[in-house]
């Protein structure tokens, strides 16, 4: 479980995140929704340690991520996988080398064991057989899948996805959604997805937090979204149907 306790983040005096407190449960697909520019990505960056919160704490199963020492931080980070909006695959490495990267850096696996693990991860995302291709040689949807395979290469506990469907066609988007859902359930991990794709929310979401102007405007179960009388959330949902 990941818990945010009064997390705030300011840039040059402008408060982008305002006292956000919430919990993301293990084994569930937790969705962070909200319009662009309202702080979703900043919140995710604070959670994974790419940004340091101005105040507040990020707890990873009772470990205070914001105040850990360098070596402890590194240990927690080995439990984190992240799928970036632009996939962030390493251009100079092949698909296999991308997936193998963390295994090579952090495990003492033999090359044969690493290859087996890479094959297993690529099989999970239905991408077997493209091991020797470079990221520039595969499509956007394939890159996303390889990104997921890279994220789960180590035995992660937490999976973060920043706009996993951006730039994808509707069919591929659904495939990615299903993948994220099945990986979450199969490995019993805490998955947190930033999105403004409401189809994703209703298809695979368990819990939702709605961020509006840097604040936790609404949070609850996906099934409760339609019965919510929060005006901002209702407007956001309505607007997304007209997209």
């Amino acid at each position, binding site marked *: 479980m990941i818990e945010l306790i009064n997390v705030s983040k300011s840039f040059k005096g402008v408060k982008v995140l305002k006292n956000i407190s919430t919990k993301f449960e293990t084994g569930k697909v937790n969705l962070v929704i909200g319009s662009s520019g309202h702080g979703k990505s900043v919140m995710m960056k604070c959670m*994974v*340690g*790419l940004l340091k919160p101005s105040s507040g704490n990020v707890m990873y199963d009772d470990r205070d991520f914001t105040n850990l020492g*360098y070596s402890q*931080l*590194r*240990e*927690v*980070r*080995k439990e*984190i996988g*992240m799928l*970036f*909006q*632009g996939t*962030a*695959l*390493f*251009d100079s490495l092949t698909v296999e080398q991308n997936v193998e*990267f*963390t295994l*090579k*850096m*952090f495990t003492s696996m033999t090359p044969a064991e690493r290859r087996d693990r890479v094959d297993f991860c690529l099989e999970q995302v239905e991408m077997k057989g493209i091991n020797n291709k470079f990221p520039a040689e595969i499509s956007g949807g394939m890159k996303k899948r390889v990104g997921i395979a890279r994220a789960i290469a180590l035995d992660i506990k937490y999976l*973060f996805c920043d706009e996993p469907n951006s730039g994808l066609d509707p069919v591929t988007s659904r495939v990615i959604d299903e993948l994220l859902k099945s990986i979450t359930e199969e490995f019993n991990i805490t998955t947190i997805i930033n999105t403004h794709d409401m189809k994703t929310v209703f298809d695979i979401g368990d819990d939702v937090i709605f961020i509006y102007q840097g604040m936790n405007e609404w949070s609850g179960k996906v099934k409760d979204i339609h019965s919510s009388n929060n005006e901002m959330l209702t407007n956001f949902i309505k607007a997304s149907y007209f997209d």
Partner: protein
Amino acid sequence: MFSKPEKLSVYIDRTITEMNNIGVGSLSIVVIIAIFQGAVTTLQIAYQLISPLIAKPVIGSIVSDSSMLELAPTITCLVLAGKVGSHIASEIGTMRVSEQIDALEVMGINSSGYLALPKIVAGLIMIPMLVIISIFLSNLGGVIAGEASGILTYEEYFQGARESFMPFNLLFSLIKAFTYAFIITSVSAFQGYTTNGGALEVGASSTKAVVYSAVAILFSDYLLAQILL
């Protein structure tokens, strides 16, 4: 950058790859520049010193000393600042703007160490080697130009070069090469790593890397000459 590497073997692999990129990848341009700079210097020295009172081997001694003291290390490294420096800055800069550096950080890897250290170590190993090759080829260029133009024979050239040779000059040249290698790789890696924005900023970082490296090389050239000569 100087924290303990996550896995030494990976860093060694990366260093070898960078040695290939920096050293082998720059060999052709270094060869061309070195031969021509030696040849042109020979012709110009001969043009300025043409007199029956000056022995021809003097031309060889001036060209070989100039090559060793200034031309090979400084000109070669200025060119490498352009070639290697822009490559390093744009590579790391592109990784920055495409979130690849963020990906490294999320994985728990010291991104600055992982990206910059192998390049700096590779530069410190390969650039002095390129400078040594450049010294040799500058002299070869001088001999070829001397023979081809009939200004002096290769015996006269090497007589002059041998008579004026001082081992310290070679050491001085290598000290320069190490200094410039560190400047080129570290300045360029820094410029790339601190890139912020998109493609336009990657280009700007690449330009800054070359300009700052070149200026720093010229400053340190003066300082080293002042201190060591």
